[in-house]
């Protein structure tokens, strides 16, 4: 059986791959490919946030009774990332490679710090707290459309 931790960490690394593909296209100044890859990246991130915010976090909050704790910090960081995504989209629309790379560098740090905290702290806690319902939660996450 896949654990929540394993499933969501694997998805992080998938998002990283698409992030790199978009950035590499900007480095190569291949704007058409950059546009496609960036859109794919945004879709993947949106999907990942939805799996957490609509399924994992509510289950965790209900089970532990902690709604103002770690999950609210994580939601806040998702919000932060959304703002950087919007700025990156602008930079790409203006074919501003340097502007995009400055933002993508910043986003990478923000995103990976966020992921580290989830992978090292929150997911293991969720594995423990939600061990009885992991299968059901994984199924619900799988049903979220891309």
């Amino acid at each position, binding site marked *: 059986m896949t654990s929540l931790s394993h499933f969501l960490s694997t998805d992080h690394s998938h998002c*990283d791959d698409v992030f790199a*593909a978009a950035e*590499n296209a900007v480095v190569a100044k291949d704007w058409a490919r950059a546009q496609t890859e960036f859109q794919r990246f945004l879709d993947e991130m949106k999907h990942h946030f939805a799996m957490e915010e609509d399924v994992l976090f509510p289950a965790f909050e209900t089970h*532990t009774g902690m709604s103002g704790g770690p999950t609210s910090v994580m939601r806040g960081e998702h919000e932060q990332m959304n703002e950087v995504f919007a700025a990156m989209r602008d930079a790409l629309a203006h074919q501003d490679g340097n502007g995009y790379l400055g933002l993508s560098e910043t986003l990478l740090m923000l995103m990976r*710090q966020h992921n580290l905290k989830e992978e*090292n*702290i929150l997911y293991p806690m969720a594995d423990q707290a939600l061990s009885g319902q992991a299968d059901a939660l994984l199924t619900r996450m799988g049903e979220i459309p891309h």
Partner: protein
Amino acid sequence: MIGPGLSLEQAPPFSVPLRFFLSAPLFLFAAGLGAALSPDWTATPLASATLALTHLVTLGFLGMAMLGAMSQMLPVVAGAPLPNARLVAWVSHLGLLLGTPCLALGLYSGEAVLLMAGSSLIGLSLLVFLGAVGLALMRAQVSDTTQAMRLAAFTLGVTLFLGLGMASWLIGQWAPEAPLDWLTSHVLWGLGGWIGVLVMGSAWQVVPMLQLTPPYPPRLTRWLWRAMLVGLPLATLAPSPWRDAGQVMAALALITFAVTTLRLQSQRKRKVEDVTLDFWRVGMVCLIAAVLLAMARIRGVLPEAWTLLAGLLFLIGFATSVVTGMLYKIVPFMAWFHLQARVGFKRGQPSMRDYLPETRARGQYRAHLAALFCLLASPFQPLFTIPGGLLLAGSAAWLGWNLLQAQRLYHQAGAAGC
């Protein structure tokens, strides 16, 4: 469930790590200037000038940067912020800031008052920091990185103890039976343990994070910190096959780490030009060379000048490169992050590249390489000593300038409310 102190909150206040990061280049600058003004440091590894310069680099530059980095990293990778972070940072930073020059001058001149003042201040600084790190790490989530951090903190404690012991010997308080054994252990625990293990434990997190490389294999990271845990104490024993085995084990761990890092970096997904990556690659190559030379030197295969070469490769080639590369990521990210926390996200806010443009960092990288080449040649060709020292001072000043510019932009952007 969530233990007391386990926290997902972001970094400590900007001022906590920043004071360490901004002070660090001062000491590298001083070391470079000292190396140029007192070129006799190349005569022998135990010359008073060599000891003084070494401590400016290890305590002043590397120590400062590593304490700052640790205070920043603990909450993120271990979910364990330092307790009383502001107070701990204030005391440990001030102790190191005042204690390091006293100790360096004391080692250079042999003045008992300076040695005493320097070692007391450094002792106070590091004990306060270690106490706080110890408390934080007791509550940390267990992972190979936190185990490495625990081990690194422990080795810093041992290094400090041995260092204080030798300082009191130099002051004339007591006479160890075998002062050279104290010295060897002090070097081994300080370089292999504190610097080596801390860089390893941090790399497992930051190398995949910065360049999007595959992760370090978990079996390898488990083995690496355990090999250091067993190897370092064995390597400190009296001459015996056990000691030899300990030395080989620690050396193998460091080399395996460096080779793996180079291999993973070659498989990175990001193709963007990155000065931090270059600093790390130079660092790993120098680490491998330093360890091989040190092993050959311990076995008496090489003449004394090679000890200096191994030391320079380790301190300037490996540790200074890696730490500089990290500063170029941590400082601009923190500036971005804290500005954003203060005034909210706004379009047109400086990004990491605005805080630290790649061209500026790239120029300093070249100066660092030039300094490194000259310094590595110095033990064999004295002509290189003065240019090597001056280049190191210049490169350190450039690094400090780059970091100050980032801090200035942070304040300007904050004042403008953007």
